[in-house]
């Protein structure tokens, strides 16, 4: 049976200037997208702007922070004009410290087994379900994966998490930290995250005559056509802005 060529999946409009055009309308609803970036590439800002734009249209959003305390995160993000503290007060933006969550779950240990992973996935999905979260950011999934001893368990964790969140209709950004080796950025720290995710957005730097220019590139996004070009990324007081990178400047 032939598919319907005119069928379009509903989109989660990120509201990030330039990104929805790159994605031809937004991220397909319920997708788990890996946002993999080097340090200072704008991952956290992009994630928070994504949540804030959802909250401004009345969506319940959640941020699980594993790399910095939520208080510090909010303090850093307050400098941006897109941030509206009333969304936190009104319960539309919900920020959780992973350390606190682990304490609740009795997971104060350095290595997780399969039961621990199941408990973590259940806790996250319970929160998403209870609050009715439609946009979620986990910052960073790499920090969580460091507690998981092997690739198969990491794969299980990400697969279960992605499946549960997708079932709940929650569009998720999984922030991943990557390193730049020999000028080439890898797309994930453990190599398995990129295979599980529905989409991959890479953030990094292009060095041009001793200066670093931030870029964003959508490498993969299931369920939508999208540009695969590199876009220059600038972090302004209003948030992330994107413009196509000059072609003669990409590889200099």
């Amino acid at each position, binding site marked *: 049976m032939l598919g319907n060529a005119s069928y379009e999946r509903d989109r989660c409009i990120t509201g990030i200037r330039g990104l929805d055009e790159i994605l031809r309308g937004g991220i397909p609803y319920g997708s788990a997208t890996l946002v993999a970036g080097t340090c200072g590439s704008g991952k956290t800002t992009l994630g928070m702007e994504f949540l804030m734009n959802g909250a401004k249209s009345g969506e319940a959003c959640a941020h699980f922070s594993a790399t910095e305390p939520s208080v510090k995160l909010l303090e850093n993000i307050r400098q941006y004009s897109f941030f509206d503290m009333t969304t936190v007060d009104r319960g539309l933006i919900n920020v959780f410290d992973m350390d606190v969550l682990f304490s609740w779950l009795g997971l104060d240990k350095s290595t997780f087994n399969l039961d621990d992973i199941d408990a973590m996935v259940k806790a996250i999905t319970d929160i998403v379900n209870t609050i009715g979260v439609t946009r979620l950011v986990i910052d960073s999934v790499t920090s969580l994966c460091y507690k998981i001893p092997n690739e198969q368990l990491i794969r299980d964790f990400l697969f279960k998490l992605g499946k549960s969140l997708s079932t709940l209709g929650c569009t998720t950004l999984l922030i991943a930290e990557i390193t730049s080796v020999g000028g080439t950025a890898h797309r994930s720290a453990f190599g398995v995250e990129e295979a599980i995710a529905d989409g991959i957005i890479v953030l990094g730097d292009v060095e041009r005559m001793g200066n670093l220019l931030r870029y964003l590139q959508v490498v993969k996004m299931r369920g939508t056509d999208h540009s695969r070009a590199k876009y220059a990324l600038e972090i*302004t007081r209003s948030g992330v802005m*994107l*413009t196509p990178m*000059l072609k*003669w400047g990409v590889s*200099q």
Partner: protein
Amino acid sequence: MIEFDLGIAEQLTQVTTTSSVQVRVGTSNSDLVIASIIQPLMQNFGMGGVYITASQTAPNVIEMMNTIGLDVSPIHFIDCVSSGILGGTQNPYSNIGYIDSPIMLESMMLRTLHRLENSQIQQNFVILDSVNALSIYNEERILAEYLHTFINTCKNRQVLSLIVNVPDQTPAGVLSNLDLYCSDLIDRGQVVIS
């Protein structure tokens, strides 16, 4: 008392917000030509705008304009030389944003768009000063690509673009591209010394 070039004001009555104007200046008259552009755009047409400065620092431009008697405080400056080239951004002006280097052409574009998005003024211009300064740091082909993008981006957003260059010091390929992309020309590149 400095007299503005009234021929420029007259010529600017013919342009629209989708125009792209190539501004040819000489090495000794650029300040006066630019002031003669800004003055009617702000005072006669009520326009606001962005001034991208790569030839000299933004404080220098502001002080020069103040000396001429032009208040440029409603203009936002994007300074490409003070931060990464000269290493100093301490000054009393709040209408300046900084870019690390004139090679960060995309940042220049995004910062410009950001300012225009936040402008309270309906009609805006962008002055790019100058192609010659940018050509010190950028190869001809990337500069030509940037100008192509810059002019068309401004045109699409109904922002008047004015691109300053000293023609006999501009790379030939870039100059021919400017001739092709720009809709208008203010030619003060030949300075007559009396």
